[in-house]
């Protein structure tokens, strides 16, 4: 029983991170119909910036809480600038190009960012310096620490905030209008380019927060960390129904749970034939199974094919 609870807790924590990154994918997809392949690298850059700033601030004897907040803000600022630039340089000129052209530039951006990070921060694993000890709590036979609790709470607050932003503010209404019909939204006086830039910056800010969370949780930062995380988050977005905000959240949390439960129980299920190294297989199998029965994801509407 305590193993089950432990795996559920781990899954929730991991799932919250997936959900935050998946939101970035899904917002961009909803508005532009584009898979932003470079999004995972933005997460990585966010983590790297947070690491560097946090180290510098701690060396300068800043108060721990202040240092954490400032490094998070710095990471968000850099990522927002990065997200804005990526859209301006690599996607906007290809707005009317064949659908796969921006996919290739996205891959290009991803390669560039990864190698840039390798040049600046090196190939080694950096340990993430948390300025306070993360206390572990006993919780019904399972163990949960402060960082994990923090991740789930922050993710929850951010998701609620995002829902408010999209459904209750002027900018959110503009975002939904552009997603619905870009030609009509222009006629209604919406500045599409501004909305798209805003969406990229918003997604990148979420990515920075997610990057900080992963690093704090695992205590490790690496130039390659964004690739697999981005892949999983994209999977989560598709699982929930891409283009749908609630779907991304649901998909992220579900994927986290599936993975950790799969890793915990796959050995028992297959009589010891498959071990926890098949964790990723498990996640993809579930994804494929879901898509066979619900081809547009769990919460997705029936989308028309866009050529």
């Amino acid at each position: 029983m305590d193993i089950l609870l432990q795996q559920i807790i781990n899954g929730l924590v991991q799932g919250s991170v997936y959900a935050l990154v998946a939101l970035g994918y899904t917002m961009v997809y909803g508005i532009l119909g584009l898979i932003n392949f470079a999004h995972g690298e933005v997460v990585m850059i966010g983590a790297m910036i947070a690491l560097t700033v946090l180290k510098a601030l701690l060396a300068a004897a800043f108060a721990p809480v202040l240092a954490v907040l400032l490094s998070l803000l710095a990471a968000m600022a850099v990522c927002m600038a990065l997200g804005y630039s990526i859209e301006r340089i690599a996607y906007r000129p290809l707005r009317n190009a064949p659908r796969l052209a921006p996919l290739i530039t996205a891959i290009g951006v991803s390669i560039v960012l990864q190698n840039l990070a390798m040049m600046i921060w090196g190939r080694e694993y950096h340990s993430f310096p948390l300025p306070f000890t993360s206390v572990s709590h006993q919780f019904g036979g399972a163990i949960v620490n402060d960082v994990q609790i923090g991740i789930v709470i922050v993710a929850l607050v951010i998701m609620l905030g995002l829902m408010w932003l999209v459904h209750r503010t002027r900018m959110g209404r503009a975002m939904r209008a552009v997603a619905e019909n870009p030609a009509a939204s222009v006629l209604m006086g919406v500045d599409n380019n501004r909305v798209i830039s805003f969406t990229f910056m918003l997604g990148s800010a979420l990515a920075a927060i997610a990057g900080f969370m992963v690093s704090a949780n695992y205590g490790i930062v690496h130039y390659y960390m964004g690739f697999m995380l981005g892949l999983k988050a994209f999977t989560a977005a598709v699982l929930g129904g891409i283009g749908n905000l609630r779907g991304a959240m649901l998909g992220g949390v579900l994927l986290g749970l599936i993975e950790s439960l799969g890793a915990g129980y796959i050995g028992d299920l297959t009589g010891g034939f498959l071990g926890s190294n098949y964790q990723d297989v498990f996640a993809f199998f579930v994804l494929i199974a879901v898509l066979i029965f619900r081809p547009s994801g769990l919460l997705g509407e029936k989308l028309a094919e866009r050529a």
Partner: protein
Amino acid sequence: MKINLNSKLFNAPIAIALLALPFIIDALFGHGWVRITDFALLYIMLALGLNIVVGYAGLLDLGYIAFFAVGAYTYALLGSPQFGLHWPMVVTLPLGALIACGFGVLLGAPTLKLRGDYLAIVTLGFGEIIRIFLNNLNAPVNITNGPQGISAIDPLQIGSFSFGNSYEWMGMRVDDVHLHYYLFLAFTLLVIFVSRRLEDSRIGRAWVAIREDEVAASAMGVNTRNIKLLAFAMGATFGGISGGLFAGFQGFVSPESFSLMESIMVLCMVVLGGMGNVGGVVLGGVILVALPELFRNAAGPVQQALLGKVVVDPESLRMLMFGLALILVMLWRPAGLWPSTQRRREFDADDGVLQQEQETVYDASK
């Protein structure tokens, strides 16, 4: 310009150039580059296979390298000390292609209902599943030897003639890299021939029809299910053949060679070169194999010459420049370097009209 292999007047200068190419490259740049040329041919075969799925039928496949892996592992397992089997190439190569074809149908069948990006993520997942299995099938029963991979694979061999040896003919030394070049060239030309013939056939036109509008195609009597499956199967078969050749040429396979990045690379060749156009895809393959190698040779020495020392890690600089090149080429030519005539026409067409049409379709199907 079209390379029409079908015509009786097969272009003689090109044929001679292709035959002499490995020796010219050898003389000018050395042995290593002939080897790179061999790999380029393998990648061109892969890219042409993917071109059928993505370029003709418009099905975005991000796990294509899985078929390459299936072909490679089939060859490796049946021709290495791993199981003590040493089946001849004339058996294992077609068998690998057949098994890859089976996997293509296996992937295609459940995903027929999926569209666009949902298909992309499922194929991506499929590719990863194959790789993870290859990586982990060393316990409890050792089949693939796990991450260590399979080594000492038999060379490509027909009868007693091995492509892995060097021969002396009329005072001219012909090495293994040259021999592999001719073997791969023959296969590549075969794949090009099949692609070109398919393109203009009833099946090829059905693929394009599905790409442009699946509902309309099905209304016109195209059996979309079978035709899509056929696209997956054909593409996978080419991937399987290419994989078998790769295993025999390299003498070693490991799951590392079949990562998602490889799938993405092959996709880049297709899109960068010009989707749906055989010539463009070949061009894309050549460029994307040659470019990183050029950067590899240039990244270190150029720094040395300009700055007096190697400041930046050449390996990451090389990939950085490669990424930049991808972005710049796509920005410069969004339809690819050498797009098919049809695509070019669409692209040059009045944007407003095209967009309006697309939106009408979009609204109507809601």
